[in-house]
């Protein structure tokens, strides 16, 4: 291993801005995309449930 301290690791030999700028944005994107999809799924499921409840109230269960 070439790192002698935590500070050295984060400094990335002077390339911190570029290396962490790349990894940071990528990590953020790969976390946000699944979260947005989870929300999209929850929204569809919720609207389907609402529709079903409305159907049942009208006395026409599907």
């Amino acid at each position, binding site marked *: 291993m070439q790192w002698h301290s935590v500070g050295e690791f984060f400094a990335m*030999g002077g390339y911190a801005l570029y290396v962490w700028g790349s990894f940071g944005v990528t990590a953020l994107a790969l976390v946000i995309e*699944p979260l947005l999809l989870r929300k999209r799924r929850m929204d569809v499921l919720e609207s389907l449930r609402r529709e079903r409840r409305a159907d049942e109230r009208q006395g026409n269960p*599907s």
Partner: protein
Amino acid sequence: MQNTIIHWFKYGSPQSFYPLAGKMLPWFVALALIFGLAGLWLGFFVAPTDAVQGEGYRIIFIHVAASWMSMFLYLVMAFWAGLGLALNTRLSSMMASAVAPTGALMAFLSLWTGALWGKPMWGTWWVWDARLTSELILLFLYLGFLALQAAIDEPRRADKAGAILALVGVVNVPIIYFSVKWWNTLHQGASVSINKSPSMAATMLWGMLLMALCFWMYSFAVALLRVRAIILERERTSEWVKHAVA
């Protein structure tokens, strides 16, 4: 033979693919995490400092993975879109729509990490060079596909229009891939190729390949997650969806 045909049709319907996708999902998530952790560990703690680029070269571990995925996902998207156009199968077109946003994200990440790599090494965030420009066109093709589909209200018409755009755009993929050979560009040549041994340390190469596998598994997981949402949205009036939600 008879068996295969039956299977294809069986899983070709959104109704039977929906639970199958749900079963495959955790496996792809697990593989993405395993490959990702192994790749990051190799990339940051095992791979040596580069003789020329110092620690700055470590951007390669995501830059190459994102770039490969952006091209590969385009081919996957065009394949499903083309299949949907030719066979008029709903699920194929849904798959194409499910892959497109992730492909666009990969193309963006490829350009973003490329800019952050180009600045310290070439002295510029951007040049209108063949490799960079054709990758930018790839991003625009993805965005064009998404915008076109979003602009058409009727889903099956949107599928068809998107499919034609996706198929025409396929010509751009080999242009990106061979751009570093066909033109004199600032971008370096291929890091890995089939007919010559790779021009980098073995640990760097393995880190890169593991990250590529991680992005690959991630893309599949996210595409499955998205296709499940698309299936529910588009098939919402069908009986099986109503029962599935109960």
